[in-house]
């Protein structure tokens, strides 16, 4: 069995020889993203906090939803998720400049549900390794050598944490930025999975993606999919109606009136822009508030590409919502604090990825810096 992370040795050699390295105390330390990445992603892709209008044929704010189990209409067939685990392994110094060195295991996986409910893993499971450094804090010589070293490592990518992406905007702390950068890479893997690996789906085989849909899904021409977000931007404002009957609701107000077995109306993203309505979303209460701690618990946000920018047929939205509602049993309760809004097959896809990751113990033991000259 090959030694894990042995392939990273040339890159670590470059860092140790071209810069001065301060290894992380106690070897690798896991780095978490500062905010809830899902909520941050939702905030990043929504861009605006204001939503206007209803994009469906029936213009009521709340719609009753009947759960549609698999036995009745097996609509949702594929479920995908991504995961990332980022470790701080040291700091590289060049004169007065420094950059954290982080390694991230990034992956995305999908499961297919068969007629009898059995899940199958869709192969291959996407799994890459990221080496994360702040390019702006390093000399060009070191960065170039590092790029050359990483180029020879299969399934390994060098990323700079100083290059902005929509996801990491506003985050200043370098290590948090690294963790968010890894999450962005995970999104890229998820998109590639949906676009390439799951391209063979028929129009009756819906894919459920964990989290909201980004710009990449704007003009989605392929087999149908929805994004299901467990946590979402909470400072949204909803302007509904017009004239004297216009009312404005914040998210709490909107969801407070959302009873069990109901969904909200369909809203467009990017109100007022030319791309308005290319992605639409609505909220579904998949679980009664009874037994839950908080009114927002048990609610998922469903997003769907709508390239035609037409108002959706309410019955069609009810059908999708019914299929999502039927996913409430079983749950990953006890395994995931977000169980109330987590779809079980998605949690399995997440587990498939995480099972591919090396554990922290192995990472700590396997990553060894070359001999370092301390100042």
């Amino acid at each position, binding site marked *: 069995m090959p030694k894990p992370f042995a392939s990273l040795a040339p890159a670590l050699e470059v860092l140790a020889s071209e810069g001065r390295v301060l290894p992380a105390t106690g070897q690798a330390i896991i780095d978490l993203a500062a905010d809830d990445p899902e909520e941050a992603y939702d905030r990043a892709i929504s861009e605006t906090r204001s939503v206007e209008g209803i994009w469906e044929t029936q213009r009521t704010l709340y719609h009753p939803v009947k759960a549609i*189990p*698999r*036995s009745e209409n097996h609509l949702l067939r594929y479920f995908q998720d991504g995961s990332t685990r980022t470790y701080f392994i040291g700091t590289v110094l060049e004169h007065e400049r420094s950059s954290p060195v982080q390694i991230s295991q990034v992956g995305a996986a999908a*499961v*297919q*549900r068969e007629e*009898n*409910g*059995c*899940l*199958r*893993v*869709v*192969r*291959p499971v996407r799994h890459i390794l990221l080496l994360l450094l702040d390019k702006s804090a390093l000399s060009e010589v070191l960065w170039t050598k590092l790029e050359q070293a990483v180029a020879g490592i299969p399934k390994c990518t060098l990323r700079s944490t100083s290059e902005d992406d929509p996801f990491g905007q506003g985050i200043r702390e370098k290590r948090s930025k690294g963790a968010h950068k890894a999450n962005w890479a995970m999104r890229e893997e998820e998109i590639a999975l949906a676009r390439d*690996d*799951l391209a*063979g789906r028929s129009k009756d085989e819906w894919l459920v993606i964990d989290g909201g849909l980004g710009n990449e899904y704007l003009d989605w021409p392929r087999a149908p999919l929805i994004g299901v977000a467990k946590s979402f931007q909470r400072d949204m404002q909803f302007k509904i109606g017009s004239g004297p009957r216009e009312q404005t609701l914040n998210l709490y107000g909107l969801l407070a009136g959302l009873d069990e077995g109901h969904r909200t109306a369909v809203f467009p993203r990017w109100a007022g822009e030319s791309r308005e309505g290319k992605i639409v979303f609505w909220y579904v209460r998949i679980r009664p508030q*009874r*037994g839950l701690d908080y009114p927002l618990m048990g609610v998922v946000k469903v997003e769907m590409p709508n390239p035609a920018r037409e108002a959706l047929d309410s019955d069609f939205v009810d059908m999708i919502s019914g299929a999502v509602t*039927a*996913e*409430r*049993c*079983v*749950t*990953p*309760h*006890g*395994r995931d604090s977000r169980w109330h809004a987590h779809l*079980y*097959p998605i949690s*399995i896809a997440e*587990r*498939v990825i995480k099972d591919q990751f090396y554990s922290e113990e192995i990472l700590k033991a396997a990553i060894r810096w070359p001999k370092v000259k301390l100042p």
Partner: protein
Amino acid sequence: MADEETTNETQVKESAEEKPSEDSIIGRASATERDPNSAEKFAFWLRPDFRVNPFDIVGAEHLEESHTYGLVTNIRHMTDSASHLSNYISNDFGEMLSEPNTPRQGTNVAEVAVLSNDKDIYMPIQSESKVKFADEGGIHKALGIDSMREKEKREHRVVRVPAGVIRMSNGAEAVAYLDVDYVLGPEAAHVNVSGISGLATKTSYIIFLIQSILQTLDASKIATILLNVKYDDLLNIHEPRSLDPEEHEFWERLGLKAEPFPKDKVHYLLPWGKNTQTTGRPNIFGDPPFPSTTYAYSLKETADKLDLIFSQVPDPWDTIGSLLGEVMNGIQNNESRFKNIITWDDLLSKPPLMEQGIPQQVGQVRASSVGRFVRLLRRVVKTRQSGIFVPQLSTKMTRLDRAIADIKGGHTYVIDIAKLKPDEQTLVFGDVLRTIYGLYSGESGVDENEELPEKVIIFVDELNKYAPASTRGQETPILDQVLDIAERGRSFGVVLFSAQQFLSAVHPRVVGNAASKILGRTDSAEINEGPYRFIDREVRGHLTQLNKGELILSHPIYRQPVKIMFPRPPFQQGRARM
């Protein structure tokens, strides 16, 4: 999406057509942080469309292309649910009763106790190793039966004795063989059967094993003594019973003939009863087999075994023991004070023990103790006796010890004690053991040139009566006799086959000396007793679930006990005809 793998194992595919062939992989070994594999055990997950049962034998691929065989000791179903509460919550707080959209992820994990490796590699089974059902050859390797075959070739003699059939979940079968050197000596000896299996299972198995031994080895060198303790179970072992074709096949599968004991080589020794004189019928259940001999005990012929009568009597100060010594010596040596003591009545009413109905001091034993002795003896040989104690032996009666002393190889001696009182049963069993032990140990002064069978098998049920676990620190004469056989019998060729309901009720030295132990269905309180510790805790639990005809066999050659089945007897069992 080509290369796909099933992860959900809770859904079982029912279609038989989808089942791969017999030698297919049924799962892969699994070692985890919390549940690692070791040199002694490993675990494997089962493919969704396969099933195993406890006591199935499986083979796992191992290092250097070797195979490690193991016994399935338990199967667990595990899911990713954190708790039962999570399952309740997952079902809409207990309100969803229909099938969930996605069944919870789960798998069946079998726990396996390692039996052997065909290249003697006892490194732990590596995770992901392929696991298959063992075939007959594999089962034999697993149990060490293949080494018995090699021993046969090497030593040019029969070593393997069929002891039943191992039948596995996938339909595979293998004959379980015992190594004769561990059944009849010299390596080890004795067989003990326990369990509450019901109607004659324990007895049936022992008789099956004896038939297997007699048919496999040179029967002319083995004599068998069977004590019939229940009804007329063993009083018709020479009479054939009609068997259906499956039963015949079962016997043939074992390489044995479904035949009763040969009529000309079975001897029935039946007890004299109170009415035998008038009716001519011995004191037995059912009709007497023909031909048979009736045995009885008169005082003169019982003098040397009077101590056996008092086996069940507490004697903390050894007063009865002292008096017994006086009486036994006096009668056997024809001492003058015992010259008028001919019958039991004489002993109970005449000097030296009694005079005009008053107990007398005998030697150092006080009159009061003599009185107690007489009361106890009267109760056994007079007031509560079954008829076995007679004043004098008539020509229709025989002495049991004489009949046994005439033991011949290839012959089977059935001694009925079913209707005898407990003290009488003890006397008869003790008499048998003492006689045989005397013959084989040389204590009885038998001419060494006199032909004795090489081996004598003695079978007794309800062994706990004679060798109880709790002796209150006293070793009774019958227990001494049983211990002699258990501990030293194998060196002389005397082998004890015994049975009882509860292993824990039998003296630990007797249990410990039984090299082969067979367990039938046993209740849950019993399996937690000390004598069952030789079985893994996981395996022990299954003892409560055994069906009739299923037994667990523990043999020194096997690293783990195995579950076996055996054929029904080919002879008439008395109660079956009632």
